[in-house]
């Protein structure tokens, strides 16, 4: 795997907060079209890794490249989003005072400047795209409801829908099934597998059942660096992984 052919490339990345190394010499490569699951105990640095990729946190050292050519450490959140990196947060963060439909409208790929938005008129394509996403995330019936009034699981789905609306090249999905029922979890796995057919995806998740369901390559993080990488069976057989994570 090389930098040139990768969609995301992290090499020797470190970051510390007040002397505490949250990410320690982390290297990770994601191929175009690949879906990767990231596991690891709480505090392993999974969310911080996403913060670094999306420009929220600047690494102290190391390389972070998108598409093999774009140095992400030189860009801010808005620019990185426009390159095509979308993110779902660990706790669902939707625009609560707006309708489900408007949450998707705001996320829809395209113009991001303020002035043109004053005179924006919903095109047929935009309306169709929103309808399609509402179907995918099974929220057609709630389209006119305020996002604040959705259940926890529905908010998670809405946020995945917002990701889809952005139509990014890479999706970073942080703990999408936390707090979901088993049925919702299975539905989410189905949704992500569908999405992975056309996008590169990184999913952070604790739920082993869910990770098994995804059936993709797994990376286990611990104390800010990669502990093991491979199939789920390979990783969960690793002594150190069992010690720090699974065996607890």
């Amino acid at each position, binding site marked *: 795997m090389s930098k040139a052919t990768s969609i995301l490339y992290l090499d020797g990345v470190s970051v510390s907060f007040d002397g505490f190394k949250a990410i320690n010499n982390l290297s990770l490569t994601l191929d175009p079209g690949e879906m990767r699951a990231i596991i690891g105990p709480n505090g392993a640095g999974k969310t911080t890794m996403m913060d670094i990729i999306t420009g929220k946190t600047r690494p102290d050292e190391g390389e972070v490249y998108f598409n093999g050519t774009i140095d992400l450490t030189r860009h801010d*959140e808005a620019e990185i989003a426009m390159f095509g990196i979308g993110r779902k947060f660990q706790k669902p963060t939707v625009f609560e*005072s707006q309708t489900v439909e408007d949450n998707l409208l705001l996320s829809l790929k395209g113009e*991001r400047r303020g002035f043109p938005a004053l005179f924006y008129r919903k095109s047929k394509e935009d309306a169709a795209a929103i309808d399609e996403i509402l179907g995918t995330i099974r929220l057609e019936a709630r389209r006119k409801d305020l996002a604040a009034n959705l259940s926890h699981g529905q908010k998670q789905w809405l946020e995945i829908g917002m990701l889809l609306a952005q139509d990014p090249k890479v999706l970073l999905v942080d703990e999408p099934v936390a707090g979901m029922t088993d049925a919702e979890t299975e539905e989410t796995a189905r949704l992500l597998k569908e999405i992975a057919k056309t996008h590169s995806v990184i999913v952070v998740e604790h739920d082993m059942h869910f990770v098994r369901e995804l059936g993709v390559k797994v990376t286990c993080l611990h104390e800010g660096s990669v502990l093991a990488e491979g199939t789920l069976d390979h990783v969960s057989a690793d002594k150190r992984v069992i010690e720090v994570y699974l065996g607890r």
Partner: protein
Amino acid sequence: MILARFFAGGFRSPLVVAGMVIILALAVLVPVLNLAVPRGSAFHMPDYLVPLIGKYLCYALLALALDLVWGFCGILSLGHAAFFALGGYAMGMYLMRQIGSRGVYGNPDLPDFMVFLNWKELPWYWYGFDSFAFAMLMVVLVPGILALVFGWFAFRSRVTGVYLSIITQAMTFALMLAFFRNEMGFGGNNGLTDFKDIVGFDIAAQSTRVGLFIISAAALIIGLVITSAVINSKYGKILAAVRDAESRTRFLGYRPENIKLIAFVLSAVIAGIAGALYVPQVGIINPGEFEPANSIEVVVWTAVGGRATLVGPIAGAFLVNAGKSWFTGVLPEYWLFALGGLFIFVTLFMPKGIMGLLGLVRRRKSTPVDEMSPDARADIAPNAAEQQQ
């Protein structure tokens, strides 16, 4: 075509349309009751009430301007009276130039206060104010450019919440101190007054006052259409998204600083126009208009009427100021206490103000950031706690 569709958005909310109709009724009724109904009739409106209500209309426009940034974008500006005063000064400078040689000193080239200070010639920044068109341009440009520069620095540095409120307050305070200085050339302590006429009409004539009243009402209605169109557009949705979860919008590719800047500049321009309409109706503009307390009063009107409702702040401006006129007649020393008490009461018990009380605000089951765990708040919006006041 595009513009027509944009303005049509301003009429989408029934509440806003109702507000427009009421202001329109006022714009017709007041002149009729004052000019057409004979004096002595029980329905005659006394002359002094026309500029008084006209003044309230200007305050209402100022409250509307504040609501655009505070209600819809979460920017609690404690310096909005500064934009109002700057618009007022631009109008005042035009009115001063109209005095010509009719001043106390009879100097055709210089306003009285400059003669008094022994100035020999007009400072350069007074050039052009003989022209009404130029002065009107300044009414919008001066507050607009100040807001552009101020907002550009503040929003780009990601200053939000209480810190932003404090620097807006510092801005109006600094302007007040500057305008108090005689050397600034804006009449110092006394400000600008003794106006004679405006575009050829005697400023003290009742017909002129009625004319200014109608123009103020029209400005308020237009202001309502524009702000309502703005918040009903997609831009308005982005604005609310920035208000509710600023850092989240960045990950969608938006630049919250630019989004906020548009609303802030528009708001300052509206405030400036309100100030320009206010000055000929009250007959004076002085540095007292920059006082920090004035800006805080605007916040109280807006909160009392109901934040983020557009019409609420207009109602709030009328009610609180009518209350003030009455209260300062009865117990003048206690007005500030009453105002402070009112603000605390509204904040604690009427978070959506009068509009909320009347049940005119769309409810939602929960408020966003309050409900999240502190951990989630830090996760997505490090400044969320500050964003919501």
